[in-house]
């Protein structure tokens, strides 16, 4: 089962390695992880996407809570939440494919953030489904490179 875990941590050096070391040392999976500052400069926000059965998930949550630098752990599966990911996609765009590439981008409201004579780079934001869908449609045209941020998520009010 896939889970999104939101973790508030002290903004100190070494914290990322404590968290990632916890996962690697105990054989837990990390699918994606993203970290950024919060309104409080001493606190950072991590969003971790992981998989595992109920028992493993319980351990992950408890072990995260046990880390000295972890302030708060929330399993978003228990809440209503919005998740987003950003992805940059560089596609081959020779003359004969340019129109098609732009048409697909348009359907998904992707923005062109760079273009050259042979390529376009699109920026797309959305949930996992949307990003997978655009990648599938662009694949036949020829994707040169993909860079993804990993998920961020926030609870709904």
């Amino acid at each position: 089962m896939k889970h999104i875990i939101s973790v508030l941590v002290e903004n100190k050096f070494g914290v990322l390695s404590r968290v990632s070391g916890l996962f690697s040392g105990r054989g837990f999976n990390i699918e994606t992880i993203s970290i950024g500052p919060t309104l409080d400069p001493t606190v950072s926000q991590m969003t971790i996407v992981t998989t595992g059965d109920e028992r493993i998930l319980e351990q992950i949550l408890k072990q995260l809570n046990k880390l000295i630098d972890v302030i708060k752990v929330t399993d978003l599966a228990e809440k209503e939440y919005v998740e987003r990911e950003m992805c940059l996609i560089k596609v081959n765009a020779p003359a004969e494919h340019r129109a098609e590439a732009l048409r697909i981008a348009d359907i998904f409201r992707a923005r062109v953030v760079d273009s050259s004579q042979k390529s376009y780079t699109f920026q797309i934001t959305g949930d996992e489904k949307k990003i997978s869908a655009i990648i599938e449609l662009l694949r036949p045209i020829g994707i040169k490179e993909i860079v993804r941020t990993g998920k961020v998520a926030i609870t709904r009010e």
Partner: protein
Amino acid sequence: MSSKEITGAEIFLECLKKEKVDTLFCYPGGVVLKIFDVLYGQKDLRIILPRHEQGGVHMADGYARSTGKVGVALVTSGPGATNVVTGLATAYMDSIPLVVFTGQVPTALIGNDAFQEADIVGITRPCTKYNFLVKDVKDIAQTIKEAFYIASTGRPGPVLIDLPRDVVTNKAEFHWPDHVDIRSYKPSVMGNKWQIKQAAEAIAKAKKPVAYIGGGVILSNAAAEVLEFAEITKIPVTHTLMGIGGFPGTHPLSLGMLGMHGTYYANMAIHNSDLIVAIGARFDDRVTGKVEGFAPEAKIVHIDVDPTSIRKNVRVDIPIVGDVRHVMVELNKELHHSKEPWDQIRKSWSKQIEAWREERPLTYEYADDVIKPQFVIEKLNEVTRGDAIIVTDVGQHQMWAAQYFKYDKPRDWLSSGGLGTMGYGFPAAIGAKVANPKRDVFCITGDGGIQMNVQELATAVENKIPVKVVILNNRYLGMVRQWQELFYQERYSSVDLGSTPDFVKLAEAYGAIGLRATKPSEVVAVLQEALKAKQTVFMDFVTARYEKVFPMVPAGASINEMIFGEEPKKEEKKLKAVK
């Protein structure tokens, strides 16, 4: 610079005084010279120089386990720091409070592969409860305060503080924080009231309950509460290797140790129980055997300060997170209220347990011509009247020391349970003796284990720390040999220690006393002479080479599937007598 400013090294010393540290196990080197200079000639601290940093950390560990206080060690950077890793991992696995200081290269050189640089904070992250790199002299006091707090609260553990050279040479004013508040670290102390009530009800309802106690009982000083609990409810008590002394070994309700080398009756009681009350224990694989086959009918109440211990290995019906002592106080209150006819309730279960006790008591076959290792432990128990601190290494001797000595008090048994560190025993015994100069401290070790930190003989002799060392000398890495005999078709690969050194001469070479026994008739005299001696003593007991530790649960089996020694069963004995 104001005149009130002092160096980081001086701040370090002031902090140790504030934390009431009375003993420091430390080994010098380049980047910590400034600290050693401050230590020179001061009178408030006892300074013990081990002969190897690993020994130093085990000494601090022995000091901590035997007193409940935080053990403190200091070493240099690079090799000094890497030498403490085993000691930290040992303490971490057994939740022992230590604060270990390592020197570090100057902050400007960190990451440059400088001379004697090691990323010790990175290396020890998975084997410490927490660790710090101090980057500013102004942070030393706060860091040390937090380190002692983290090490000694919640589930205790070792904390490492890395001190770069410039941080201890720079100056700052000394401010000792009067309290610690770490927003992300708030260990739970009190257990949930409702859960405690549930547990009390389950205990009253149970027909076949067992209490299973672990190191948490020792760490939280809950032995008195556990005794009260058992005596109210007439519940039989079994303990783990780490829980030895948490309940009196001579008490009629004691089942002795459970698990891989536990007693038959403890394992049978657990296996057939309908309720297990786990108190400060963590269902380690050496205890549960095959998890799927563990106590199939039992409901489980689990009391532990560490929520991650709960439901890690086995299902739990009533979890109670909190300090073991606090929870037991509350649970006992609850049980006092319920006026159950406990004796009546337990009658048939006690009878069953007595039957198991009689069916398979803990025994070995005595011999006249050769010293059986179990015999030495029994005699040690008699000679000391059970009143001694026993510190062990790891192997067969450790299991015999657990089985055949009766421990009635907490903190009288010190052993590396979680990591199983050979080489732990002797230095830990030195640390225990330093902390308890009036007690008799015996190290029970093997011919293998003693050779892993034998250099500490110099420390013991030089500092007049009279530890008495019982070497059960089977000329083998006995425990490994036992597994090879039982499970590897007697292919004895790298276990024959052949001509072990002459331990008597070795002791004498260091200025200690060496004694030897080769016949059972000599055992008691050697133990008595050692007990009387005012110096460090090595006792070389030349024992039966092929003796094995029984009973035993083979790896992968359930704990009711035990194997026993060749000792003749009662019926067979009778048959032989008839012939």
